[in-house]
């Protein structure tokens, strides 16, 4: 157990988790930024939001992902950034769960691991849950590894 803990709290593990989560969000935010109309349509597909709010989310969400991802990689407000991204992952899991439970046959709008879009499925929720777990590491044990200033 102590070895598990030693691994989980190791500064290298922290840096890895931080860079991984940040890089994934920078990568997946890009196609959404470039086509806000298409992304808004994917958001609408979840049928969770009132139509009035769909475009607002379609416009702002990719920027939140990009800025928080970039901040996380650069080490600017890393705990706040990773908290935002962990929150987004939690939202994605909840939204995906409700969409699947209601039997929606939709695209996930996640653009990961490839730029092509995938169908929303339970496997994607498991993947998001794993990413959420990884994103909790830098919140729990902030590391200064590969960063100049204290977190």
């Amino acid at each position: 157990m102590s070895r598990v803990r030693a691994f989980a709290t190791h500064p290298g593990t922290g840096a890895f988790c931080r860079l991984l989560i940040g890089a994934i969000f920078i990568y997946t935010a890009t196609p959404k930024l470039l086509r806000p109309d298409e992304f808004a349509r994917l958001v609408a597909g979840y049928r969770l939001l009132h139509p009035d709010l769909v475009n607002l989310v379609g416009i702002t969400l990719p920027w939140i992902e990009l800025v928080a991802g970039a901040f996380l990689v650069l080490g600017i407000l890393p705990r706040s950034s990773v908290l935002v991204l962990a929150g987004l992952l939690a939202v994605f899991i909840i939204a995906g769960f409700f969409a699947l439970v209601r039997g929606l046959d939709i695209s996930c709008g996640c653009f990961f691991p490839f730029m092509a879009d995938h169908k929303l499925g339970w496997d994607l929720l498991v993947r998001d849950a794993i990413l959420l777990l990884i994103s909790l590491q830098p919140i729990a044990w902030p590391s200064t590894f590969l960063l100049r200033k204290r977190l």
Partner: protein
Amino acid sequence: MKSNHFSQSDAAAELARVLLGALALLIGSAAIGIAVNHFSPRGIPVFPVGQELAAVQASTVSIPLPPGLKPVELADAKKAFDDAAALFLDARPSDEYAEAHVPGAVNLPPSRFEERFPDLADRVEKAPVIIVYCSGAECSDSIEVAERLEETGNYTIQVLEAGWRAWAEAGYPTTTGAEP
């Protein structure tokens, strides 16, 4: 005791700092997004009104058929089924197909198109009309399969936009079981 007290208030201050940072980050990036969207040629209305809103609402219930693909009404699809005048392709995932499908329909999810199409080419070739369906108007698998078919050959393809759900709800014949 005193040091413990201090470390607790330190932790509270740190937590407040992290939460405040997160809030600032959310508001700041949302503002950047709205500003960029405003000046971008690809920008979309933040709060759609009138026709724009209607378009968003429509997109929440159905995926528009790309130009070039022909839709087929449920009643016409049923007629083609009764007359055995069409080959039905079920574009849903195989497990949903196994649960229930249009009798005689062939399961062809887009993800397995390459693998399955060679075996079906003969039947597709001979069919006077091909009717593709997925769950309903909100799914895109039928469109995807129809587009792949159009790339493959010169077939008469129709997309049953109302999909499987409408077929089942209409009480039309269904059958169960996986593809042999």
